[in-house]
């Protein structure tokens, strides 16, 4: 709760500041937006540590292999990073760059999922 309040305050304040300086200095406005995103993402990562602990507990309790969990977590990370990057590019008016970031994110997500896909295909091949 504390973290989301902090994130909201930082985000809203940063957004207002960015709006104020955008007309006079759009480059610094973009850098400010990037800085805000980095700070808020850093705060989120602290919360993510607790999620990781729960995942480890599930891994111990159920034998949930990291071979399944690791690609998923990487995919989620790639997805969120790509979303933030794409939105920053869009805010700066660089739609082509935003699309490139999204495509790169999708390809990277596919790349980290490849071991899972290979495992699944091998299993189905053995069944059929």
């Amino acid at each position, binding site marked *: 709760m504390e973290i989301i309040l902090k994130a909201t305050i930082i985000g809203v304040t940063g957004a207002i500041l960015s709006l104020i300086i955008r007309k006079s200095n759009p480059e610094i406005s973009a850098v400010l937006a990037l800085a805000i995103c980095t700070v808020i993402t850093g705060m989120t990562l602290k919360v993510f540590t607790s999620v990781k602990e729960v995942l480890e507990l599930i891994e111990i309790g159920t034998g949930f292999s990291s071979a399944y969990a690791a690609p998923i977590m990487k995919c989620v990370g790639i997805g969120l990073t790509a979303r933030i990057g794409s939105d920053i590019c869009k805010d700066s008016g660089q739609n082509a760059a935003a699309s490139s970031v999204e495509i790169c994110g999708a390809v990277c997500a596919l790349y980290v*999922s490849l071991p899972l896909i290979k495992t699944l295909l091998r299993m*189905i091949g053995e069944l*059929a």
Partner: protein
Amino acid sequence: MKTIHILVAIIIITLLLAGYARAEPEIGQAKTEIHNADTDETDEQYKVVPPKTVEEQASAMDADSLKKALPYEAKQILGDISIIDSAMGNDGLSAIFNALKENFFGIFKNAFKSAVKILTIIIICSAATSAMSDGPVRDMVTLSCTIAVSAIAVSDVSSFLGMGLRTLTTLSDFSKALLPVMCTAAASAGAFTSASAKYAATALFMDILITVATNVIMPLIGIYLASVIANTTLSKDYLANVSKLLKWICTTSLTLLMLAFTTYLGMTGLITGKADQFATKLTKSALGTALPVVGSILSDTAETLVAGAGMIRNAIGIFGLLAVCAVCLMPFITLGTHYLVYKGTSALSEALTDKRLAEMISDIGTAFGMILALVGAGGMMLFFSVISSMKAVNAI
């Protein structure tokens, strides 16, 4: 739904057999408690069979070889059970019930672990995708989750597919020991023609079932799973009809096989049963009338021996049924529990993620149902065969 029907039918038959086992007369002892008008004649026959005769007949029919042929799984559950033990039915059922009680929690725990793994992935994915706008990245994260869920489910199906096939092979191997002894006992009890016909039919259909299971149904289950997963990842129902067709082929082939077997068994029983009755009556009258004075003594003696053989036949039958129950018990609980847990997980995940992933989990649960039906078909075949032999023409 069909698999549930098959499961319910098996449970009802097991309960009926439990009653049948309890109603069996104690070997070598007088059965004087039942005074039913229909069974009076049979009771009289049992009264005159001395215990030693029954033991000697059991030995002559090599009934002990059945105990040696008992599969490992059944031995673990039934323990040191004896065919000529009067309390075999009760002891066997108690042992099976105890095994059920002891193992159910462990099996449920394993199934629950799979459900937790699947739900964990679904929760992570739905949390992550909720923060993403529609686009290629979101699609890729969803695809990654679908593949992870599929990998967990397919690894479960893969291990249980092997278990299903092993159970069928075990049943087939045990039937090779049970059916000849059952056939000998039934023939000694007067079912000269029907015993061999039923033996041949069961052996043939068991072989057909194993061949169909190994070469047709098992690969089809694999292809079914692949089509279900591909259909979910494609995000449009291009392959929905293919998976429905594969499921239909599997269930229909099993249903047809069982239908053919039961029809053949029923027809054989009708035709050969009457022939056996005619032959036994003819033998009795020939013995009684051909030789004056001594003929009736010989006829009575033959009647006693046939009654004893009938008791052995029923005892072997109950032993066989208990063994089949014990062999099928663990696969049935395991597959049934996983089937139900996967269906439950599908219902839960529908609240957390999109309907397609939930449907995929449900369809993978159906694969467990198909394996369950396969094992059930093998067990039912032996059940029907043994019950049919036990119910064959009675005495002279």
